């Protein structure tokens, strides 16, 4: 049911046009985020004045309001606010008393590491498994994985994390319960041990989703009409799978990955909190609990930008994998 809009794949003009369209779509997404944020600030009880640190004195607050231009009409504020955003000025964090944007960028790599590994692990698991299961519909492995997927999608990420900590860290003491490194020990092995649980927890629902997509798109490819002539040409099964099934099956899976990225970063926020992982998501939760408005908004904007960039990167892969896009160039 979920596909990238057919118009973009069938658009005339080839890869360049396709990517330009997708970049336009990305800009639309970012505009939606900034506009939604702007609207929320103005709709909030107390209005944009909430952006001024409540600990400041009246005089300082006035000065900040003037600097933020809150005395201006709303359309003027809207334009100005976007101009500030474009310069990377997202105000100062109340909690940390630092520039919100810089604080957010500091934490970004930790989250990218977690999300990137979870994504890579899920794809590496889902593709071969999807191919394998699609050729054996109704077999016991197919039923088993189907049931596991069904359950995996019903388990709250944070609860799975807690149970994993309870069993693997607290009870059996196999893995650390949280953090990025053991203080005083900075070996690669130690870092990997800290990564294992959060990545596994984050990858579980994602893998479940991707296995379903991979399986159903390979299954659809196996009964497609273009296989009969290929089989008649005498292609062996492996070659048939690789050249005529997997290639086609890749496209819906890529689409699914694109749709999962925004959900994945949300899952990262929860996972990071459970495992005390010093990333963007945990910072966002702390900022939200501490009513640190500039920081929360900086995080939302940086996350949205990252998701847009990730989707553009996926579009590049998409352009490579779908010959229909290149042929028209």
């Amino acid at each position, binding site marked *: 049911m*979920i*596909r990238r*809009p057919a118009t973009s794949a069938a658009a005339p003009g080839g890869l360049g046009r396709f990517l330009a369209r997708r970049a336009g*779509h*990305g800009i639309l*997404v970012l505009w*939606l*985020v900034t506009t*939604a944020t702007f609207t*929320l*600030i103005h709709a909030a*009880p107390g209005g944009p004045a909430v952006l001024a640190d409540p600990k400041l004195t009246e005089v300082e607050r006035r000065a900040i309001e003037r600097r933020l231009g809150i005395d201006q009409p709303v359309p003027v504020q809207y334009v100005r606010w976007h101009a500030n955003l474009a310069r990377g000025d997202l105000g100062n964090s109340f909690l940390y008393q630092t520039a919100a944007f810089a604080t957010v960028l500091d934490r970004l790599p930790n989250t990218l590491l977690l999300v990137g590994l979870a994504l890579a692990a899920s794809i590496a698991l889902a593709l071969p498994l999807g191919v394998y299961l699609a050729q054996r*519909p*109704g077999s016991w492995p*197919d039923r088993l994985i*189907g049931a596991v997927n*069904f359950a995996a*999608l*019903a*388990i*709250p990420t*944070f*609860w799975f994390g*807690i*149970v994993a*900590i*309870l069993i693997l860290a*607290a009870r059996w003491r196999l893995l650390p319960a949280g953090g990025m490194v053991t203080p005083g020990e900075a070996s690669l092995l130690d870092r990997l041990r800290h990564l294992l649980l959060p990545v596994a927890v984050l990858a579980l629902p994602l893998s479940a989703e991707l296995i*379903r*997509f991979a*399986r*159903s*798109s390979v*299954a*659809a490819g196996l009964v497609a009409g273009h296989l009969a002539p290929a089989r008649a040409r005498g292609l062996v099964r492996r070659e048939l799978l690789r050249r005529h099934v997997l290639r086609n099956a890749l496209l*819906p899976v890529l689409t699914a990955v*694109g749709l999962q990225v*925004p*959900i994945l*970063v*949300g*899952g990262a*926020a*929860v996972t990071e*909190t459970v495992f005390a992982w010093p990333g963007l998501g945990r910072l*966002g*939760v702390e*900022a*939200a*609990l501490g*009513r640190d408005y500039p920081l*929360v*908004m900086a*995080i*939302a904007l940086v*996350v*949205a930008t990252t*998701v*847009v960039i990730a*989707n553009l990167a996926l579009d590049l892969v998409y352009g490579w994998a779908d010959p229909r896009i290149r042929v028209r160039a």
Partner: protein
Amino acid sequence: MGGSSNPGPSVIRAAFPARALAGLGLLAAFAFLGPLAYPVDPAAIDLSNITAGASPAHPLGTDESGRDVLARLMHGGRVSLVVGVAAGLVALLVGTVIGGIATTGSGWVESVAGRLVDAAMALPAFFILLVTLTLFGGSTGALVLAIGATAWMGIARLVRAEALSLRERDWIVAARALGKSPLSVFARHILPHLVPTLAVAATVGVAHAVLTESALSFLGLGVQPPRPSWGNMLTGAQLNLAQAPWLAVYPGVAIVLTVLACNAVGETVRVRATALPRSTRRRDGP
């Protein structure tokens, strides 16, 4: 779980919706009728009896403040289920309206609405929720609206895809030729055919909302203590994992059972709807 693995309606499958619905009914009865049969105050703190195991006085033990876990599980279930169902319905309503606009407006309205749906789908919903709840606080109403407002996109897409494929069918073309307005065509001739789709979307929407509410409440951004919800019960549980691991088990199991039951109902409706002889139904996604 993919449509093609279903060998048709078997006895097990036929019994499935009844079971899943019964499961949901039991969970609802537990949360809404349970406190009538078990009238224990979920907020009564007893610091002399914290993280106690199961006993006749406290069948599921007590939590880190000595409150009765069974009573909190019942009252927390009320909050979680109400927020989940209400937010799921908000998402369904918004999704249907916007999906409808994306198929019944004039050319450019359809195009703009379609683009907006695609763009909104790429938003990191969880972080939008963080912003919203920071600015508006975690009242039940704000929670319902915020979760609903970040979960309608999939439904809008579904409605749009189905409505677009229905639009070329004879009876719709006939209705349009008779000069009916796009709104009336959508409401009288398209919407009734979307009922199975919307039923599936509703169950998935409720499941999603229950999961989201529990995550937000766990993080301290959703339902605020001392009011219990399945999500915020787990906040205290994680802090006392070593002394009282069972505290982490009950609310988690309750959430999983609810989501499983919702998904199972949706899955059954979907399988039955696809089993109907409707050749145009697309089967390319899970």
